[in-house]
């Protein structure tokens, strides 16, 4: 039972689940998307990215790449929402934010798929 692997897996899956939680719901309805959840999703995604540093294998490189993609998209969503300011509840703004978080969600799925593949082939 490797503690490091537990933490690694925990944060990757937590990142994906929080991202999904924010994303799910009507795309243009601000009541369906909680801004606290976007905030926690960003934080956990950043932590997951930092945990992926330093792995020199091919799979490690792809892990890091997916994490960076997710980070960029979530941070872009946060910036759009902050920049919208008072008109933050407008459908156009919400649609932009949610679609970006959807893209980040796909990146997180890819990361989790890689994690599952790695675990299954290395069963010990």
């Amino acid at each position, binding site marked *: 039972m490797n503690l490091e692997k537990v933490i690694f897996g925990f944060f990757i899956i937590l990142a994906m689940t929080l991202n999904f939680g924010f994303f799910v719901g009507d795309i243009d309805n601000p009541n369906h998307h909680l*801004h606290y959840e976007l905030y926690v999703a960003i934080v956990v995604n950043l932590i997951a990215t930092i*945990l992926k540093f330093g792995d020199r294998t091919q799979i490690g490189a792809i892990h890091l790449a997916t994490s960076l993609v997710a980070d960029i998209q979530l941070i872009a969503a946060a910036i759009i929402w902050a920049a919208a300011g008072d008109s933050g509840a407008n459908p156009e703004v919400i649609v932009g934010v949610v679609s970006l978080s959807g893209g980040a969600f796909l990146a997180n799925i890819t990361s989790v798929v890689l994690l599952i593949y790695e675990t299954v082939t290395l069963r010990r």
Partner: protein
Amino acid sequence: MRAPLLLLVVSYAIALIGFVLIPGVNEVGKAIHLTFFQAFYILSYTATTIGFGEIPYPFTNDQRIWMTFSIYLTVVAWFYAIGTIISLFQDPALKQAITAASFKRAITHLHEPFYLICGYGETGSELVRALDKNELRVVVVEINQERIHELGMTDYQFNVPNLCADAKNPDVLLCAGLNNPMCQGVAALTDDDHANLAIAVAVKLIKPELRMLARVENDVVAANMASFGTDHIINPYKIFGEHLAMEVNSLGTYLLHQWLTSVPGDIVKNPPAVPVGNWIVCGYGRFGKAVVKSLQQENLNIRIIEADPKGTNCEACIVGSGVEAHVLQEAGIEDAVGIVAGTDNDINNLSIVMTALEINPNLFVVIRKNRRLNEPLFSHFNADITMQPSDIIAHACLSYMVSPMLAAFLNLSRMQSNSWANAVIARLVMAVGEKAPDTWGVRILPTHASAICQLLEQGHTIRLQHLLLNPANGTEHLAIVPIMLVRGDEKILLPDLNMEVQPGDRYLCCGEDSAKSTQNFLLNDMRNMSYLVTGLELPETYIGRLLLRRKQH
């Protein structure tokens, strides 16, 4: 690397969520919440200790409590992260990797002919200085970091790529450009004979046709080097012995030799005449043996003083170090004409000579200088002949590297008479001045002297004097003296200026640095050269050439 970044993200996250959840009050007292962006903004200028102010409204007490807590949390995390990142860039392993990579890149981008010098001690630094003055590129490998720093602080004309590594290691030699087609030769000048041997073996195995010069002091190692074909083996003691013999019987040849192998621009001292008579030699090591051998060849009477006769295989010598007056008197210092202080300790040498001069002030003094740091003592003392092994090796290497014709010229000059050498010197001084001249080779080939070859093809007669003409004034010569012509297998010393130039000729020229670059330019410039040779101005423009061709038909 991960820990500080994680700490930063987590501390920011905790502080941020607190700012968002704790309500503030606006100007009418209504509770409002900060947005995430406002909280992030406040946190940014708090964590980096900039500190603007409380926006959008002054904080409530609860907010200020949370603010205090975040200050301590995030500022510490921020400083820790920055400190770690800075120390990462100062990691010595990273620095070394960067240095080695930039060295390799400098070598690959070196598109000029260069020499690889292994060992940057006293010999190496003197040689690099001389090569740099001669506009030849150099790459240095040296095992001692301090000497590499010294190289970095010396002001050379060209960039000298250098690496602090052990040259015995063939990987280091390959990294330093052994296989680079621009490498013209390797000089092994470390103070360890076996290291020099290892370098010579590596070079001769990897690139056998590359010129290899090695410094060696032990005869066994020298024989070993010669066996696998090291091109030039330089034994400073043997060379000094030969020089001393030259100084005894042909001073002019010696002076010519010194002149042509010094660093260009240096002032060469006039060598004093070596007296014939009784000589005393203190120290029968390698230096002493070489000196005794050459002085005995000149039929001088020699008495040897040696502190360890068994260790040095000295047969008939007076036991002692020569520092005490009574030992010198036993050797007959009163009726001697000259003394050689040749031990490997500078202070002992100076002490021997000072003691000797007290007894017999008219002695001719030959002293061996080992370390360049004792230079002030020796220059103040001003002995008649000061022998420094590193200078001798450097000048010997220089004569092989500057132009292969120079070594051949020096060998031939030794067979000429003393008065011939004096005549050459007089001619050089008249043309070039009192300082040591530059020496270079001129090849009459389409790649090196294209204008000359074109004129020869057109059927003009080019004489040697045409190669020396000054473009500013068509009748005066540049400050150059051609001292040797190599035509096929034939070597002609001091060719006559009216001689005809043929394609494939090689001339060894001696002269001022500015004259060298002017001549180099001129030999490839068709317009100027044809005017100087034929007196006709060639047209510069296409239309001009067209009109000239029309006129000729």
